[in-house]
């Protein structure tokens, strides 16, 4: 502390003692707030590791490879929920990406000025709707619609693909995919729009000046230029879908069977925690649910850092080239 004060004094010879004290105070208070955030991240990891400890020491890595969640036998493994999480979030990403990129291209290249602001605001508004409301709409509107029309239609036309088997109820993986698509499309769209708008005008005009059509300009200039950022936006959307618990738990049906059929009932890690955490039968089940949370935490950290890495690398490539 005294070392800090002397360097301060030498740096600013005119400032009095109280002044230095005020500067140091604000810096220390604000700095410790920043430290506390880092501590919270560490604390979250520690707390989840502690909570999951019983389950980790009981099952170890076998938790990932087995497929059982049986409160009666008091035996648990993540298999089916890992499967459900991957299927629903990857499915949502597959549906959302083309839709979001098309919306972003519309907003950045095609829309007339007056429409741009309105549609942009509406898409952002869609992102602000709470997941529980989307879930309510999912239960009341989407689930019956899926059960009565969409699932049978897909089954009869595309039934030869194992993904579109016979439907066993409107609340299923596919409905969860649709709900997640609704939630992550605006995220990917608004991030991509920013990226598309950031493409230097000279590059676009050069391409158009060479006689390309607008689509060829998009494919040849905008998409390669923003590739890194768009990938990062997709990864962030995936991260959001991985961790969504509430809306998924409302429409995914609940179940513990792994099946290629998207029209079967299941659970994701998030939805299992949401529905089961307060009803867990034993300390081992609760600990296993915290283990699910720990897996979610690690994957969300990994997803975020990966997105950061990609953005950093691609911005370096762009500024270097």
């Amino acid at each position, binding site marked *: 502390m005294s070392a800090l004060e002397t360097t301060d004094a030498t740096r600013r010879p*005119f400032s009095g003692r109280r002044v*230095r004290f*005020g*500067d140091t105070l604000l*810096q220390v208070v*604000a*700095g410790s707030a*920043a430290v*506390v*955030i880092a501590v*919270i*991240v560490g604390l*979250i990891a520690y*707390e*989840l590791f502690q*909570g999951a400890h019983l389950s980790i020491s009981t099952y170890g890595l076998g938790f990932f490879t087995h497929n059982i969640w049986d409160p009666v036998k008091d035996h648990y493994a993540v298999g089916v929920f890992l499967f459900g999480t991957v299927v629903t979030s990857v499915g949502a990403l597959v549906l959302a990406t083309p839709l979001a990129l*098309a*919306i972003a*291209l519309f*907003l950045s*290249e*095609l829309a007339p000025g007056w429409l741009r602001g309105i*549609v942009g605001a*509406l*898409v952002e*508004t*869609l992102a602000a*709707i*709470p*997941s*529980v*409301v989307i*879930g*309510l*709409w999912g*239960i*009341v509107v989407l689930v019956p619609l899926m059960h009565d029309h969409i699932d049978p239609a897909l089954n009869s036309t595309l039934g030869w693909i194992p993904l579109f088997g016979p439907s066993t109820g409107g609340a299923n993986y596919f409905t969860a995919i649709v709900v997640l698509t*609704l939630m992550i*499309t*605006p995220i990917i769209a608004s991030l991509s729009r920013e990226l598309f708008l950031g493409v230097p005008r000279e590059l676009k005009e050069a391409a158009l000046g060479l006689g390309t*059509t607008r689509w*060829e300009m998009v494919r040849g200039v905008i998409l390669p230029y923003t590739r890194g950022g768009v990938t990062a936006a997709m990864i962030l959307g995936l*991260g959001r879908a*991985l*961790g*969504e*618990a*509430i809306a998924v738990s*409302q429409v995914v049906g609940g179940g513990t069977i792994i099946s290629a059929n998207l029209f079967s009932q299941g659970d994701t890690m*998030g939805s299992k925690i949401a529905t089961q*955490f*307060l009803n867990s039968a034993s300390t081992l089940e609760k600990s296993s*649910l*915290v283990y699910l*949370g720990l897996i*979610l*935490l690690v994957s*969300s*950290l990994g997803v*975020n850092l990966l997105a950061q890495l990609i953005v950093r690398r691609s911005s370096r490539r762009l500024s270097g080239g």
Partner: protein
Amino acid sequence: MSATDLSVFGRPNDRLRRRRIVNRGVEVIAWAAAAVGVALLGILVGYVAQNGASKLNLSLFTNPGTPDAVTSVPQGLANAFAGSLVIVGIATAMALPFGILVAIYVSEFAPRAIKGFVNLVLDVVAGIPAIVVAIFVYGLVEVGHGQTGLAASFALAVIMLPFVARSTIEILALVPNSLREAGLGLGVPRWRTTVGVVLPQAIGGILTGSVLAIARVAGETAPVLILTSLVGQGIAWNPLHPLWTVPLAIYELSESGLPNDRATAWAGAFVLIMFILVVSLTARWFAARSRRKLGRSA
């Protein structure tokens, strides 16, 4: 001979036509995608408005309700509104000063390397799923008290924090450096420059950012489900007990098969959505205005 000539001239024309058709096709797809996006929002809000607005009456705000009561009498949500108010209020009181302090540190004091690190940590916290934050806080408080509204407030504050901090950092970056330099050049100490010159310039933007963060967590369901869901009857205000909240009410009532419960869920969703839409659209408008103002003075 003339036939070959024609094909020589014909081919590029064909190609050009094909390129134009592809281009037009993609443009139509992009227009359609935007229409789908807007239509989805319209359908969602339309359903909520249609089902919610008709059930909207004074008793919704004055009568308490519980999810367990199997009754044909329409319930109110007074206790849910009270709980949301208390829990989100406390969360805001925790996250706001904290987030602003972090932003001040990052934009006014931190060396470059630490700045990057804190930004990274903020991104990481923003990316942690709400349900994970919820079981983290559950693990923290489980030992002592079990469920309380205060625990949910803390979880919501953790979720809010990166939003408040990041929007404040963005706004502080817009405050022109000439103002800071003018303050320091007059011999005003750094902390007084920050508190007396920089913050007042940015206060409008900071407040809109905070309001957006409030709108974001008001609909957050996972933390209130895990941390404050086992509620008693009637309206309660004490955050040391579990309190019912609007998103949780929607969640629980949506699972019920009774038409009256569903109607109450729609009404709750309507109020929640209207709150979020009005707040975020107004805040966006203010944000655009204060950004313009800061931009002009730069």
